[in-house]
């Protein structure tokens, strides 16, 4: 087999999480540590003149522990996909650090990224554009093994078969098919099998079920959940649907226009959203229960996402925020701890100034929110 020998799992100096699944709780090893990540793209005008800088991700930091799932929600254009792509260095971010298993990926030469990508795989939204239409299913799933030179031909075949089995596809029936002969759900299962074949530690799922029908979506979600608990995987799960994110996540991060608004344990975010944008997202979910879902019960945010070429000063959400005040335009709110443990919010006037656990709100980052108006939670 070519160069990369299977047993060197990247140049991993520090922690090597054992991936002891089943328990997503708090104390897994730190798997991914993203610090002050900034991703920008230069937009060109006619003739190639610099037209502006699109600030796709601005100073985003978060951690992900082994066995944990972090959900990232936000609207189109909030930078959530760019964030995931910056994590896998495609393309590398402009600033900041992406520390994966103790190693900073930013600035690594492509050759050094290859072993890292073994542990860091991605599942995309549209399986039909992320699978080669001319390849058979088994070749698609086997390809990463070939690329890393893992196992003998027979071992690869067995591995491919067992993975297809694992994602619920009969290898005999589906292995020789082409993507066009699959339904959306089946194709997404193939994409998941391909991501799993190298036994990664972390899978970045970018809207993995958004293009699927409800029943198929539930099947794929359950599959991801089953794989997580059986294989001890971690996910960075990107979606625009808060209800869906809740189903898979331990913690949730809410993004708006390239910034983190709020991040925290999933139960706290849903029970006690602190950022007005999170509340707006939550109330925009059509409820399956008609009376509760009727229009008057909701706070629909007005307006449109501002241009990331020229984001609003101060808090980026202020142009659409029902609680915005003068201070929001002049001073960008910093992410600070508020409420329950590990619940951070970037807002001058968060929704709950006296959260359920008053003792657990060390207002850090120099912002004391006590001058906020009494939070009327709608």
């Amino acid at each position, binding site marked *: 087999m070519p160069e990369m020998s299977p047993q060197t799992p990247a140049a991993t100096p520090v922690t090597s999480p054992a991936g002891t699944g089943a328990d997503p709780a708090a104390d897994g090893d730190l798997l991914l540590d993203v610090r002050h990540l900034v991703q920008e793209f230069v937009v060109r005008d006619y003739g190639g003149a610099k037209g502006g800088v699109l600030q796709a991700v601005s100073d985003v930091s978060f951690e992900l522990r082994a066995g944990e799932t972090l959900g990232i929600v936000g609207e*189109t254009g909030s930078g959530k996909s760019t964030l995931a792509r910056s994590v896998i260095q495609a393309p590398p971010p402009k600033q900041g650090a992406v520390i994966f298993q103790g190693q900073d990926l930013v600035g690594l030469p492509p050759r050094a990224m290859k072993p890292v990508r073994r542990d860091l795989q991605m599942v995309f939204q549209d399986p039909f554009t992320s699978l080669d239409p001319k390849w058979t299913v088994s070749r698609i799933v086997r390809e990463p093994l070939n690329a890393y030179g893992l196992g003998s031909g027979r071992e690869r075949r067995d591995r491919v078969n067992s993975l297809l089995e694992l994602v619920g596809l009969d290898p005999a029936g589906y292995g020789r098919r082409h993507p066009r002969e699959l339904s959306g759900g089946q194709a997404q299962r193939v994409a998941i099998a391909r991501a799993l074949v190298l036994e990664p530690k972390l899978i970045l799922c970018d809207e993995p079920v958004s293009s699927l029908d409800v029943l198929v979506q539930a099947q794929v979600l359950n599959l991801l959940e089953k794989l997580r608990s059986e294989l001890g995987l971690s996910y960075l799960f990107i979606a625009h649907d808060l209800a869906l994110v809740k189903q898979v996540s*331990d913690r949730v991060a809410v993004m708006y226009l390239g910034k983190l608004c709020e991040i925290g344990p999933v139960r706290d975010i849903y029970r006690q959203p602190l950022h007005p944008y999170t509340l707006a997202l939550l109330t925009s979910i*059509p409820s399956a229960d*008609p009376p509760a879902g009727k229009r008057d019960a909701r706070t629909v945010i007005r307006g449109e996402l501002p241009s990331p070429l020229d984001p609003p000063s101060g808090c980026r959400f202020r142009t659409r925020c029902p609680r915005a005040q003068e201070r929001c335009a002049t001073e960008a709110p910093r992410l600070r701890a508020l409420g329950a443990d590990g619940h951070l919010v970037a807002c001058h006037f968060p929704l709950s100034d006296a959260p359920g656990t008053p003792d657990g709100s060390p207002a850090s980052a120099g912002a004391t929110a006590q001058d906020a108006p009494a939070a009327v939670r709608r």
Partner: protein
Amino acid sequence: MTGPLGQRVRRRAAPSPAAPSAERDEPAHPGSGPGGTPLLEVSDLRVRFRSRGSVVNAVQGISFTIEPGQTLAIIGESGSGKTVSAYAMMGLLPRTAQVSGSIRFKGVEIVELGERALQDHRGRNVAMVFQNPERSLNPTMQIGAQITEAVRRHLPLGRQQAADRAVELLRMVRIPAPERRCHEYPHQLSGGMRQRVVIAIALACEPQLLIADEATTALDVTTQAQIMDLLLDLQQELGTALLMISHDLALAASYAEEVLVMYAGRVVERASARDLFDRVRMPYTRALIDAVPRADLEPHVLLPVIGGRPPDLSTVTPGCSFAPRCPDAQQDCRQQAPPLEEHEIGHWWACWHPCGSEAPGDA
């Protein structure tokens, strides 16, 4: 509006069978239909497609009515026939489609109309908003021109009047600075704004029925809420009936009065949105409701799912089409297809063994 691209025919409304011109004078009032006459009456609609030797039975006998000003939702998975049914109502099906049954719009049979008459039917009587606004808009035309095109096709307005109408329509769909936006191109607008333009085009000629085919599926939740609110507001202002087509049961239930659930080309349950959630009968609907992740569930809870896939519509099997996937299926389900019947007032279902313990057995 039917894809503003397609309509180059500039002839005046031919005095062909299309009755609409007679009734066109009171467009904007709820309940404009004569008492008791439904706006749209679909009965035993069947659509088949022939392709390479096999016949696909896309719609297998559906019947329903829409009253003036009503909001009805059709939900179902991909391939359940909901979009094909909508296309049949618009007269947009390709020639290869074999349509039988009847679709009456204010008493006029749509199925038999010729292309010329259908062009008058679309836009003035029934208009449609499609899923993908990028594909419904012409990328090389200013949005104002796309609206005036639709307006002038149907209404006797001059160039300037039509342009004024376009601005008015853009204002109606709550697009800020409509005078300026008129001269912009679709790529300069966000997805939500584009969908508003599509809605403006659809409403340009004050249709009495608006079909929204997955109109918000491609949009974000917040934008989805805005667009749905807009549609409902406009519906109330204009008295338009709204037919929502969606795969999202929760969305349908929170906006529509009545919901039809389609599976494999048939309607399997029909009820008010309320009843559908409080007293769901058809196991398929039950499965749809259960499969949606909800914000009130605990994390990492597995969703109740049913296996299998919708049946192949090119083979006709006896029995209930859902039986192979149904957790409650019994012998009789596989032998005879249950008819859609009104078992409770306003609540129809097609099932021999409906859910709900208190359900009185079956036929």
